[in-house]
């Protein structure tokens, strides 16, 4: 009986020890749903299961410094500001909030690298899922996007000034005046010289109207321009913006391309009429004009010609140039080839002799590229059209920054071909990859491009076009060419299987002998 007592006690002790002390729940959380984003000094891995963001920065010895930040419950989406400095994480908080201390919907920002780490949090009014970031990295807009709340206002926006901490007037929560439409796309303008001073606008396209929000005074009522009537629904398809002449504050314009309609709406931003000044808090008014382009444009842009500013509308084999003041249009015949995309490349190739812009035309799935110099020669409304025929169809055009802004990388839609297009010499150097579908990344300094597929990795020197091939031991899913906080560049190749691994190479002098390898990154820095 005594032995039984002892055994019973031991058994009880074992049972208590086995079941009484549970481990922290984070170790049971799956790793599904991790979102990986490149930043200027490293990469960010948002790990919703562990409710954290892991920021990884390469050091001098190619090791990865790891900073873990707690994120709010209910991860929705994450983005990095275009300058690469901040990670933005949008979270719903606890839904429904049943206790006062339940987490609220928030937008959090994180920076790390070089030993410094900062974080900010902006409280939001509703658990929304849409996040748009200003190309100039100052503002973020939180909006509804497929949220499944019982009752939802799709026209509700929260505008966050990322350069300021949370205050009573940051973020600004507003509801767009709606004529039945819901936001479809957002465009942040650069500084426009408008009546009342320089300001930036947020152009919100709904499925039937346009709203202009003054980002420098978002608490002012927005200007809404209805596009549709009861009988004619006009859905916006794209936006182009012109500040006009620098010395004038009454010639800024916004052009709106419509889906399935040959009209383009040009909104002139003019001074408020004297008679209306007491009735509106705005210092400018929006005056819409409809111009007809003789076809449904696939792309639009404001271009400078020797005759002044024109709106260029691309119509397949034609280009229509519209005078935004008079509405008079003139057509440019582009020949037999169709084009659907237009990019102004004047800042790279320079203006023509009479100060006109130069545009590059291309089309996904086509093997032709054209350069058109605007201006006029006798009998035609353009200076010159120069065409380039590739041996394969183009799927995407990737711009290069830094020291080589005159280069573009053209990806083939079939096979593994890549062309490096020189906008200055109008040549396209072909490069052949042994297999199709390779991933492509370019460095911020414009010095190199990286292609990867499977375990194969290649560095392409964009100055000499010399490729350098590497074979890693693990399949590569993505690569990031980043600047080390201490100087120099590093390449982080990710192996997105399991708990995520990485291989870090010196981006300027890559060698497998000096590479640093990692496995199980999502285990690191957990509590």
């Amino acid at each position, binding site marked *: 009986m005594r032995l039984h007592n002892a055994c019973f006690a*031991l058994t009880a*002790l074992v049972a208590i020890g086995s079941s*009484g002390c549970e481990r922290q729940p984070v170790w*049971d959380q799956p790793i599904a749903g991790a979102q990986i984003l490149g930043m200027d000094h490293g990469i960010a891995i948002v790990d919703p*299961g562990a409710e954290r963001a892991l920021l990884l920065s390469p050091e001098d010895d190619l090791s990865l410094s790891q900073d873990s930040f707690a994120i709010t419950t209910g991860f929705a989406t994450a983005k990095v500001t275009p300058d690469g400095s901040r990670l933005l994480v949008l979270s719903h908080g606890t839904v429904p909030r049943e206790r006062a201390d339940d987490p609220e919907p928030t937008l959090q920002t994180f920076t790390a690298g070089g030993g410094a780490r900062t974080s900010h949090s902006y409280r939001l009014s509703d658990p929304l899922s849409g996040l748009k970031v200003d190309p100039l990295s100052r503002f973020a807009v939180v909006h509804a996007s497929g949220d499944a709340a019982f009752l939802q206002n799709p026209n509700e926006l929260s505008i966050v000034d990322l350069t300021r901490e949370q205050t009573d007037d940051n973020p600004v929560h507003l509801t767009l005046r709606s004529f039945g439409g819901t936001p479809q796309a957002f465009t942040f303008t650069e500084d426009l010289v408008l009546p009342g001073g320089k300001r930036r606008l947020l152009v919100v396209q709904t499925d039937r109207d346009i709203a202009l929000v003054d980002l420098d005074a978002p608490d002012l009522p927005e200007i809404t321009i209805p596009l549709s009537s009861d009988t004619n629904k006009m859905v916006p398809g794209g936006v182009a913006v012109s500040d006009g002449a620098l010395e004038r504050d009454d010639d800024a314009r916004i052009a709106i391309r419509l889906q399935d309609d040959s009209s383009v709406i040009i909104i002139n931003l003019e001074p408020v009429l004297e008679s209306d000044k007491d009735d509106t808090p705005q210092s400018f008014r929006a005056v819409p004009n409809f111009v007809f382009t003789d076809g449904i444009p696939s792309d639009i842009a404001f271009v400078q010609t020797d005759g002044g500013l024109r709106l260029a509308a691309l119509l397949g084999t034609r280009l229509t140039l519209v005078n935004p003041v008079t509405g008079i249009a003139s057509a440019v015949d582009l020949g037999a080839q169709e084009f659907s995309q237009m990019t102004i490349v004047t800042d790279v190739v320079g203006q023509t002799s009479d100060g006109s812009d130069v545009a590059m035309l291309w089309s996904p799935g086509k093997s032709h590229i054209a350069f058109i110099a605007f201006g006029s020669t006798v009998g035609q409304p353009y200076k010159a059209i120069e065409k380039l025929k590739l041996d394969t169809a183009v799927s995407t055009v990737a711009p290069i920054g830094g020291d080589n802004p005159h280069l573009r990388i053209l990806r083939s839609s079939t096979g593994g071909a890549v062309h490096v297009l020189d906008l200055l010499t109008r040549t396209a150097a072909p490069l052949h990859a042994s297999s199709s579908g390779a991933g492509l990344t370019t460095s911020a300094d414009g010095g190199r491009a990286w292609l990867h597929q499977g375990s194969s990795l290649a560095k392409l020197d964009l100055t000499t076009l010399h490729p350098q091939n590497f074979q890693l031991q693990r399949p590569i899913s993505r690569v990031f060419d980043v600047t080390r906080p201490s100087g120099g560049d590093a390449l982080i190749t990710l192996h997105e299987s399991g*708990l995520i691994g990485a291989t870090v190479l010196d981006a300027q002098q890559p060698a497998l002998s000096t590479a640093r390898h990692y496995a199980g990154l999502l285990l690191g820095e957990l509590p």
Partner: protein
Amino acid sequence: MRLPSFICAFGIATALGIMCQTANATPIASSSSPSTGDRRNTSAQADGADSTEEALAHDDDHRFVGMSGFRGQVITHPGMDPYSTGDFFSQITLGAAFLPLKWGHLKLGVLSQYDMGSVDADTRGIPASLSIHRIGAGPYAQISLGDRWRLSSRVIPAANYLDASFDDTSGKLSSQGWTWSLETSVGAALRLGSAGKSDDPKASFWLTADLGYTFAGTTEMSFSGDLEQDDPRDFGTVELPPLSPRGFSQRLAFAVSF
């Protein structure tokens, strides 16, 4: 103190109390309870204390003890979480004691012991495992309570080798490290039987049970790729929470003294 830790401590204290009460209450003669008509037992009862004292004296001449069994430890340190869904860590245990000093029923000596155990779990969807090898030696004391029962205590400083791994598809990760520990425990032993002459047994067989607490240092758990010897790759480390294998422990073992 967290509630589970309190429950664990309470459980150990309770068990210890039961054991001690059981040992102290055991009369020497009654340990040979009369069975149905067994003449030898009846004779032993008749001989009374003298024969028991004689057997006890011979048993006490044994200077060597070997033991093997099972050791359990409750490790509540959060560094244990990545490798185990609970806090109980089971080990096999081997020990050898040499008891050269004797004062009456008290014997003193040294005990060396080796404990080894492992635990595994599914961590974030990845198989994880941890092995701990503990080897140490320290003072060991026994006191005889009649011919069947003994109480013992030990204080064993030890070196602990921790070997952990994750079998991830991005690459197998492993971490190895050392730390110290100091096991303090008290226990009781029940003689199951003896070999040899009854008045001069060559060896006696025991069931032992110990309870105590193991103090331990903390070791960093830095994981890197588990590479073949000729693999030239240089792996960086991923830091997991440091681990201290400390906590209440218990041991159940079979021992032989000779």
